[in-house]
């Protein structure tokens, strides 16, 4: 058992690797009653094309999510939910672009809950019948997303920025994709990716880490795992340019919304790790577009917009920054955004105030068992390890480092997408 100290935060994470290769990350908080167990597989909605040895496989969009749904069946008559219900475990699961997690909250019967979590996720029981049954349910889920204008806007914007990337697709898949999914696709993905070496377990809350590691080790030792076949994901090469520079779409919203997105190749930010880049860009956006900025204040005070927000993410080899606004004056707001991007700025005063607040409150990341679990998932998936020096990384930020990043945030490769209310809506 390894203890990983989180520098300057008086917290530690236990790390244990089982004989099967499954890694366990544990954070203990003895002040609470409950604990949260999350078993994750590094397989998400974007991993639809992969290679095993020399053979290439391609499965329909939505397979990761479909598999997550039917994974809950234990046999013909029973589901994992029924079994968790009997021992007082609150179980659920979710699929993201990059990974899939199976979770259970427990306050009592913690050992039983852990055993059940491992038992049902590592039980490859899939039938044609359950696939047909589940199709109806998942199609309704996809339709719910398509009735949600915010989800529609999110994906439409990604499609406008990314030309080929798998991030363009709904995590559930579209209705047509879902109809295509077959038993063989599910089995193929399960056999290729659901191996302890491609998975990790996180436990946060009140429990004994040595006991949990022992239970996991014993549980897995009774299961048979084939050798890990090490599938290799085949990514689409994403072209440099955005897909469209400007679009207007009618959707079911009451007021026009703008998404102003910048697509910047990561290789422009030499010698900066992705994690640091995200922290730095977030700070730059906050200073320039957040509620303490003059830009935000003027837009709101002049009633040019009623909301303004910014976010960023890394897709493939690109940093994508998106500024969103709700406005009745789209042309004026787009013009101002363009001008603002050309003259981004940062003041020493803002940096110090925002840095101090962040540093003082970093300890709050380690208060809630769900937040900590998500934080570890994020570290493992995106950084490949637990980040132990976040405090130092933030302390080191200064104006020069920020300016070095800022100079690459430009209007060179922009996609502006406007979402207008449907014609029959009149406010």
């Amino acid at each position, binding site marked *: 058992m390894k203890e990983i100290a989180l520098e300057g935060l008086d917290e530690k994470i236990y790390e244990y690797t089982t004989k099967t290769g499954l890694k366990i990350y544990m954070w203990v908080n003895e002040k609470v009653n409950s604990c949260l167990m999350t078993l994750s597989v590094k397989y998400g909605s974007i991993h639809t094309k992969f290679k095993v040895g020399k053979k290439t496989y391609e499965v329909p969009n939505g397979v990761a999510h479909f598999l997550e749904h039917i994974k809950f069946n234990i046999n013909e008559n029973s589901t994992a939910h029924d079994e968790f219900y009997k021992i007082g475990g609150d179980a659920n699961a979710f699929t993201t672009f990059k990974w899939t997690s199976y979770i259970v909250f427990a306050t009592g019967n913690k050992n039983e809950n852990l055993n059940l979590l491992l038992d049902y996720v590592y039980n490859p029981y899939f039938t044609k019948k359950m696939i047909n049954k589940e199709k109806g349910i998942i199609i309704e889920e996809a*339709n719910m997303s398509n009735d949600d204008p915010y989800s529609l806007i999110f994906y439409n914007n990604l499609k406008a920025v990314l030309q080929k990337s798998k991030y363009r697709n709904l995590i559930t898949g579209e209705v047509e994709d879902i109809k295509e999914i077959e038993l063989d696709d599910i089995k193929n993905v399960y056999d290729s990716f659901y191996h302890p070496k491609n998975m990790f377990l996180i436990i946060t809350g009140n429990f004994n880490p040595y006991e949990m590691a022992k239970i996991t080790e014993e549980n897995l030792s009774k299961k048979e795992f084939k050798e890990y076949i090490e599938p290799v994901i085949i990514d689409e090469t994403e072209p440099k340019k955005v897909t469209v520079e400007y679009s207007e779409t009618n959707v079911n919203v009451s007021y026009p919304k703008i998404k102003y997105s910048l697509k910047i190749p990561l290789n422009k930010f030499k010698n900066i790790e992705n994690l640091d880049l995200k922290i730095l860009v977030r700070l730059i956006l906050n200073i320039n577009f957040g509620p303490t900025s003059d830009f935000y204040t003027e837009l709101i005070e002049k009633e040019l917009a009623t909301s303004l927000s910014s976010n960023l993410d890394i897709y493939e080899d690109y940093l994508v920054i998106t500024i969103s606004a709700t406005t009745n004056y789209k042309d004026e707001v787009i013009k101002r955004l363009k001008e603002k991007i050309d003259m981004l700025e940062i003041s020493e005063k803002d940096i110090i105030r925002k840095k101090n607040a962040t540093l003082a409150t970093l300890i709050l990341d*380690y208060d809630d068992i769900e937040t900590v679990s998500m934080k570890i998932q994020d570290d493992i998936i995106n950084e490949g390890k637990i980040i132990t020096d976040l405090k130092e990384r933030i302390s080191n930020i200064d104006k020069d480092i920020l300016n070095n990043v800022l100079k690459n945030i430009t209007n060179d490769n922009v996609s502006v997408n406007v979402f207008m209310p449907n014609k029959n809506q009149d406010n």
Partner: protein
Amino acid sequence: MKIKTYKCNSFNVHTIKTDKFKTTHMEIMFRCPVVKEDLAKQTFLIDMLSETSKKYPKRKDLIIKFEELYKTSLYGSNIKTGQMLIMNFITDFINPNFITDKNYLEEVIKLPFELIERPNVVNEEFDLKQFNIIKERLIKEINSISDNPFKLCMKKAFEAMDKDSPSSYSLYGTVDELKSITPASLYKMYKQMLKNSVCDIFIIGNLDMDEAVSLIKKHFKYRYINNNQIPLYVNNKIKKKELIINEKSDNIQANMTVIYNINNLTDNEKHIVFQVFNYIFGNGGLTSKLYQKIREENSLCYSISSMYMKYDNLLAIHVSLDNNNTKKALTLIKKCLKEMNEGKFSEEELNDAKMNICMSLDFACDNNVSLLNNYVFNYFDNFPMIDERKEMYKKVTREDVINVSKKLKLNTVFILEGKGE
């Protein structure tokens, strides 16, 4: 965990001291009876008071202050609980033992009272600039409800049930009501809030509570004493025959809301037994009768659940599904309830429901807001404390559950039709 109430003449401070959490949560509540005509103004007022003040006129000024106080968050929120309106100022801040700055606690406790007592007002009128910004945003929020088919369907269903019942009132009011508000009339509502409400403050966190209360007294000069009892429960009228309404929409899916009245529950039934019934019937997640019948056996939807609106004596069920399946789903919902009436659930299901509810109470103890809320409703409504409730759940029998299931009567079915893929 130590609970203590401090009586400060015109308000009470209820404190829960615990070292379980790294942050402190404080709610300053002004309570009054729900009056339909006042709701739009009250919603406007809470935003006005929590987003701008004499000292911090712009949003920017306030956010900078929050950052200086280590990401303190402060916001206003109105809640309609049956017949009672709560105007609530909520502050979350990092516990002072993590902060070296000696004035921190006083600065952070002072802030909400600074906003409440010194609003952005000149000559008995709120500042026009900020007034217009908030007004414009609220109008958009009212109109944006149609962006969310679920919320829209719920709203329409309650209005169809009885537009004169407090259960169907919208906290935002209508656009016309909002447009008729002026900076002067809003100021009158502010005076009314101070004069006619009952004020209570609730704090949970790791603080020296004596010190916190003396700081509150120092910075909160509220002088109006009101001890009026505010009624909570709404008795919604029962319909002889249920109302079924269909309305067209542009959505792909249909949305359906089904409302039942709940009649004559005893205290034990409303606090305890009905929760058990609802857990088995429709709120127990993936094992509930509704979920099993409508999603698992018939693949009609992604999710379905029933919501117990205790203070409205109502149960509301919502489902999004294909347009062609609404009739079938309604028949199945009725069938599920009939099965509950007939006691078609096993002893095991009953015990599992009780165990899972108790487990969710254990979870609630790990969250500062849930712990505080439990105390708040103990104070307002004698809602039993968590440990007491766990014992009460153990005593619930099959007959108890069957009995409450018979106290339901269908009132309204509202279907917002979809147009398909």
